[in-house]
């Protein structure tokens, strides 16, 4: 069974129909890349999986997103528990203006997962998971803003890991980073996919090809093509996908 099964998903922002009848099933413990030109709805798609679209006023959603077989848009869904299970990393690193430790401890504290020594263990484990521990272990009380952009983004990944999610959504996590920092995050994403289901939005084709197991191509709010990454890149079924991959538009 698919980890996330999206069916006939439509999203509107006021009059703007951003996602049109999107259906796709996302496999557990794999990296799924969502690519497409700017404004194609790829960010809206992943934000539908943790119901973050609804914090924008004027948004409306129809269709269903099944997480482990349960529709997250059902009325009895606990949206806070959902967002704990489905973590998110944003386009621009957005640490809190707190210490490195407090950034990672924020989620576990909110969800009352741990305190004291156990909290410190979770922070260490999460920072190791975010491949940042060795760089920051001696200065956990420094402000998160003292880190470089790439380190901040890995801190944000660690912060998301700290609440023990099952799925990690990433919205162009490398678009604000230099190539060296990007390489580190890409390696980390591969590592994460062993334990988590990763869904990553990217407009960087090489990145999608390098790190993903499955690729979805979106255009103008619709899902054009979806399959395992090798076949999408080597034998695209749709002419549109082929044009995009070969750089004829986008």
């Amino acid at each position: 069974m698919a980890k996330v099964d999206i069916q006939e998903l439509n999203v509107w922002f006021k009059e703007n129909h951003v996602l049109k009848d999107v259906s796709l099933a996302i496999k557990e413990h794999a990296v799924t890349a969502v690519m497409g030109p700017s404004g194609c709805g790829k960010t809206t798609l992943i934000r539908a999986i943790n119901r973050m679209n609804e914090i924008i006023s004027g948004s409306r959603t129809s269709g269903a997103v099944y997480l482990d077989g349960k529709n997250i848009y059902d009325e009895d869904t606990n949206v806070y528990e959902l967002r704990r299970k489905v973590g998110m990393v944003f386009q621009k690193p957005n640490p809190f203006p707190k210490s490195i430790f407090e950034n990672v401890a924020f989620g576990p504290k909110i969800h009352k997962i741990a305190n004291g020594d156990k909290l410190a263990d979770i922070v260490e484990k999460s920072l190791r998971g975010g491949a940042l521990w060795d760089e920051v272990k001696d200065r956990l009380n420094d402000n998160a803003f003292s880190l470089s952009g790439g380190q901040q983004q890995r801190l944000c990944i660690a912060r998301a890991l700290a609440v023990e999610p099952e799925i990690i959504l990433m919205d162009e996590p490398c678009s604000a980073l230099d190539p060296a920092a990007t390489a580190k995050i890409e390696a980390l994403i591969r590592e994460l996919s062993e334990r988590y289901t990763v869904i990553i939005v990217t407009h960087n084709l090489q990145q999608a090809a390098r790190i993903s197991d499955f690729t979805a191509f979106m255009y103008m709010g619709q899902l054009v093509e979806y399959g395992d990454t090798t076949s999408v890149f080597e034998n695209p079924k749709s002419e549109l996908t082929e044009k995009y991959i070969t750089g004829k538009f986008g």
Partner: protein
Amino acid sequence: MTAKTKETIFFVALGVPTVICLLAFFWILYLLSSGIGTLNWALLTTSALKGGMFEMIVGTVYLLLGAAGVAAPIGVLAAIYLVEYAPSGRVTHVIDQAINNLAGVPSIVIGLFGYTFFSRQLGLGVSLAAGWLTLSLMMLPIVIRGTEEALKMVPPSFKEAALALGTTKWRAISATSIPAAAPGIVTSVILGIARVAGETAAILFTSCVLITRGLPKSPFEPVMALAYNLFVQIVALGEPAQRVFGTALVLFLIVASFAIVAIILRTYYRRRQPWLR
């Protein structure tokens, strides 16, 4: 006209007003400084009954802190509601305009309202409490606007990150937006205090008397205040100028010290908030 003449004209046109402002400021400082001679520590700490200023100074501080105690919580909570919760629509727009208008109401009108409503209707009489409520009306728009500005300066990404971790909306606001905006909120309260510190008309009918026996023992007793005494000394008693300048200087120093504290706080926290840079 050559470019050089143009430059000269603009230099003069922009320079003269600046010099006028500076001259006016230094003239006021000069007048105030002529009060220095009459001031001494004993005068500041002696009871008004013996010709000192003690009750006026403490009374002024009582009035300001009490008014801040009323205006700060109401203003901050209202601003949080307006920025984070209020739906953008007609009602919110009307509330917004009302706050702007409240800031523009002449202080004598506020004073008159305070007298008819707080002193008479609510039966608070001429008292510290009536003064607090009246002054807080003048502080509210400053606190609300200042807090709103501070909250709007906080990057939305903080709140978004908290929400994505599964917090409630209030938790996201209270754990990220409010701490980040706190310095701005504190500054706005202090600026509100500075704004009403020299206020006379609002306390004229509501809380002040010329002389009391010692400090007020409860919020329902009248109080002495520097601004009010200054007014009465000149208008009713025709005091010698030097004595009045002394009172004026003390009042000026109280107002200025609040403003300076606000500036120091703002500068200090700006440096510690990298996202503002």
